[in-house]
C-alpha cells in the first residue's frame, strides 16, 4: 500500500503546504488518470487531510491536481451583508459565512472574540475575508477541513525524526518522519543539531519519500 494517496490513488510527487494562518493546499501528480469526484481524502503516512479539487488536468496518462483544504468554499465569493447596530455575535457571523461557502461550521477557540462589535459590514468577496476580518491571523484550517478560530498552539514533537538537511540562511529544515501529522505550524522540536518552532511546513512527496520542509519562526 502506498504511503501517500489521494482517494486511494497513489501519489507520484507532490507538495502539501500548511501555513500558520488560513487554508492549506496541495499540488500533486497522481499515478493514474482516474477521476474521483467529490470530497478528497489525502493520505500522508499516518495523517489524513480532507480537501477538494480546485483544478485537475490529465496529460500523458497522469493527472495533476491542485487541492484546497475543506470543501473549496472559503475561497468562493459571498455577497455583501450588513450586520446592524447592536451586539453582533461572532458565531452568527462566521456560521453565516460558512453556510454561504458550503463549509463546515468553524470552531471558536477560547481566545476567539465572542462578540464582533456593534456593527459589521461583510464585504462582497472571498468568504475567508470574514475570518481575516474577525480573527486576524488567529485562525487556520485543520486537516479535517474545519476552521479553528484560535491561535496555533505550541505542541512539542514527541516522535522520532531525523534532520536531513538545513538551509541556514532561510531557516528551513528538511525533516524525515513517519508522522507528518505531528509537524504542524506551532509545533516545537528539539534535536542535537536543530531545534525551533514551526512557522510553516511543506510536506513533500518525491522518489517514494516523504519529507517535511520546515520553516522555523
Amino acid at each position, binding site marked *: 500500500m502506498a504511503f501517500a494517496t489521494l482517494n486511494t490513488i497513489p501519489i507520484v510527487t507532490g507538495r502539501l503546504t500548511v501555513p500558520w494562518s*488560513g487554508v492549506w493546499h496541495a499540488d500533486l501528480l497522481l499515478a493514474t488518470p482516474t477521476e474521483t469526484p467529490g470530497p478528497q481524502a489525502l493520505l500522508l503516512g499516518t495523517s489524513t487531510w480532507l480537501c477538494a479539487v480546485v483544478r485537475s488536468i490529465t496529460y500523458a496518462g497522469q493527472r495533476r491536481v491542485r487541492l484546497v483544504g475543506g470543501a473549496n468554499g472559503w475561497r468562493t465569493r459571498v*455577497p*455583501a*451583508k*450588513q450586520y*446592524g*447596530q447592536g451586539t*453582533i455575535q461572532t458565531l452568527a457571523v462566521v456560521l453565516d459565512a460558512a453556510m454561504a461557502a458550503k463549509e463546515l461550521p468553524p470552531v471558536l477557540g477560547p481566545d476567539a472574540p465572542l462578540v*464582533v*462589535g*456593534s*456593527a*459589521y*459590514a*461583510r*464585504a*462582497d*468577496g*472571498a468568504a*475567508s*475575508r470574514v475570518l*481575516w*476580518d474577525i480573527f486576524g491571523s488567529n485562525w487556520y484550517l485543520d486537516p479535517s477541513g474545519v476552521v479553528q478560530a484560535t491561535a496555533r498552539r505550541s505542541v512539542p514533537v514527541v516522535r522520532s525524526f531525523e534532520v536531513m538537511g538545513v538551509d541556514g540562511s532561510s531557516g528551513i529544515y528538511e525533516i524525515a518522519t513517519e508522522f507528518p501529522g505531528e509537524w504542524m505550524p506551532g509545533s516545537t522540536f528539539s534535536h542535537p543539531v536543530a531545534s525551533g518552532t514551526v512557522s510553516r511546513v511543506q510536506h513533500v512527496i518525491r522518489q517514494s519519500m516523504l519529507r517535511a520542509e520546515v520553516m522555523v519562526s
Partner: protein
Amino acid sequence: MTDRLRDAVAAVLRGMLPNLAAYVRWEYRVVGAVPGPPVLISGTPVDGSCPFGPLTNITLWPGPAGGYAVPAPGSLVLIEFHGGDPRKPAVCGLDPSQYPTSIKLGGPATQPIAIGPITDANVAAIKAWLSTHTHPVAGVTAGSAAVTSGPAVLTPPVTQSTGSLISGSA
C-alpha cells in the same frame, strides 16, 4: 474571460490586505435618515465596485461637536470605516450641493444662536426701524438743553433663532 495571472496576483493582494476596501471613503446615496441624535443614515453605494453593498442605520459623525445635519433622501454621503475596520462604519461627510432637511447645533434648543440669514434679516429690520423711528421725550423744547426723562423702552422687531432649524425657515 479574464487574465488568470492578474486575477491571482489581485487575489494575493486582497488576501494580504483583506480590509483594503475598508480604507476607502465610499459615496452612498441616501435612501433614508433617522433624525438624531445620533442621526442614522441608510443608503446604497454609488460606485458599483463598492464591496459593502447597501448599508442601513449608519451613525453620522457630526462636524462641529454637538451639531449635526440630517441629509435629504437622494443626496450623497461619504461612508468610511474607522481604522479600516468593517466593524466600525460611519458617515463622515455630507453632500455639499444639497441642503439638509434639518440642522441641529449644539446646546439646548432654547439657547439662542446666530444664523446668517436670520441675523441679517434682523439687522436689516433694526436698521429700518431706527431709520424711521421718532421718539418723543417729555419736557424737551427745541433749542433747550434741559431734558427730562421720558419713556425709553425700545422694542426693535427682532426674531430670535434657537438651536433647531428646519430647512427653509432661514
